[in-house]
């Protein structure tokens, strides 16, 4: 039972990372109908920026906040410069642009920072917390806190601020949004900025566990896809919940199903994607979109 609880908590910790990245994917998908395949690589890039700040002598949380700001601006600029020109192109073209962005980020990161793995610091104490016989990693718990805090902030932003409301409106109904005077293009750019921020949080939280390298987010992105598919690509809340579910399931299956262990864990995510698509393609909380042709 102790091991079970430990594994659940540790699953929630990684699940939080999947949730953040899944939320980033879903936000952009809702606004533009496009899956941003470069989301994970952008997060990796942001993590390297944070690493550079820390290496230059900045305190961890200062570097963390700087990175979030840079990620936000970077996301906005990418939307304005790369996505905007192909905005009205077929969806496949936009997907191609994001795939190109994926490759570029990955190579440029390798070029600047090399492919050598770098240790990335955790801001949380190294001593595990003990409750009786149960041991929780401090980074796991810290990670859960940070993720929940970010999710809470973003919920409050979308739920209670006029800008958040305008962004939701622009995502759901661009035509009517223009008619009430919302600059839809800028709302999309802000969405990209926020998505880049979630990604950066995910990257910085996962890097101490996986160690930093240009392929840091490759696996995480697959899990995030599984999370978004499970929760529903049309439901931000669903994607977040999906992230936590995927994290926990991944951990429990790895622990209790002997032939899967750590090697085949990855397959679990892919299997989840396929099962969801076969059984309930809209995901747990997604709604099917009816389009008039």
């Amino acid at each position, binding site marked *: 039972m102790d091991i079970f609880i430990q594994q659940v908590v540790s699953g929630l910790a990684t699940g939080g990372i999947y949730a953040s990245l899944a939320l980033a994917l879903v936000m952009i998908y809702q606004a533009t109908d496009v899956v941003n395949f470069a989301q994970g690589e952008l997060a990796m890039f942001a993590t390297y920026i944070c690493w550079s700040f820390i290496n230059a002598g900045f305190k961890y949380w200062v570097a963390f906040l700087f990175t979030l700001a840079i990620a936000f601006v970077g996301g906005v600029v990418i939307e304005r410069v790369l996505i905007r020109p192909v905005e009205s192109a077929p969806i496949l073209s936009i997907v191609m642009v994001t795939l190109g962005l994926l490759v570029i980020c990955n190579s440029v990161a390798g070029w600047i920072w090399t492919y050598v793995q770098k240790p990335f610091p955790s801001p949380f104490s190294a001593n595990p917390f003990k409750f009786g016989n149960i041991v929780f990693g401090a980074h796991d718990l810290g990670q859960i806190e940070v993720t929940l805090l970010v999710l809470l902030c973003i919920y409050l932003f979308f739920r209670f601020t006029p800008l958040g409301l305008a962004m939701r409106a622009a995502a759901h109904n661009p*035509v009517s949004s223009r008619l009430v005077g919302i600059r839809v293009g800028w709302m999309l750019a802000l969405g990209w900025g926020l998505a880049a921020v979630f990604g950066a949080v995910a990257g910085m939280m996962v890097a101490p566990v996986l160690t930093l390298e240009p392929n840091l987010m490759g696996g995480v992105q697959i899990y995030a896809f599984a999370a978004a598919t499970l929760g529903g690509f049309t439901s931000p809340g669903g994607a977040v919940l999906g992230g936590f579910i995927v994290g926990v399931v991944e951990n429990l299956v790895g622990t209790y199903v002997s032939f899967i262990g750590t090697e085949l864990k990855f397959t679990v995510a892919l299997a989840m994607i396929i099962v969801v698509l076969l059984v309930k393609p809209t995901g747990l909380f997604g709604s099917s979109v009816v389009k008039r042709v």
Partner: protein
Amino acid sequence: MTALLDVQALEAFYGRTKALHGVSFSMAKGGITTILGANGAGKTTTLRAISRMVRTNGTIRFEGEALDRKATEDVVQLGIAHAPEGRGTFVHLTVEENLRLGAWARRERGGLRDDFDRVFGYFPVLRERRRQAAGTLSGGEQQMLAVARALMLRPRLLLLDEPSLGLAPLVVREIFRILRTINQTGVSILLVEQNAALALDLADHVFLLETGRVVMEGPSDVLRRDDAIRRAYLGY
């Protein structure tokens, strides 16, 4: 005196298809003007041209200011509110959120509460439903919401596209009664309507559109007595 809205030689295009072939008209401040015409005559397109949602040639001036090079968002900022065909409801958002969005573009930020009170005064049912997702409203309620949302801008000109479409006669009568009240508070209205009898009752000036051109215009009580109009649009 400059007209509130002045449209000259307006042509509009959907891709390569020309939908308006040189529409010219102008409307005075403070009135209710209606554009009548059959399906496909270009009524909706005319409104969409004013709101810059369609590619055009020709000039459109609002209080002397040219609109034809502006973006939709900037036209809204001048105080032109458009309740579009199909009502343009944000179905995922609550009634209250829909109304808040209506006030997004206006310059003066304050007084939101007064505006809520005012539109809830016109349409009490919206107050009851204000926490409800707008997509769950009935057609009539959604039309009321469309008008209410447009009013949140504190517009100087209200563009209304077929507010009677698909609604029960009783509901339509109620909405048109409120439109008259709204007009009396100083909001000019440009109304596009299939229901000619209703539109002629409400409007003081009428333009008749046929296949993308203005073919007749005049005060509504004059046009109402016109034989051709009576036969074609009023059906008696």
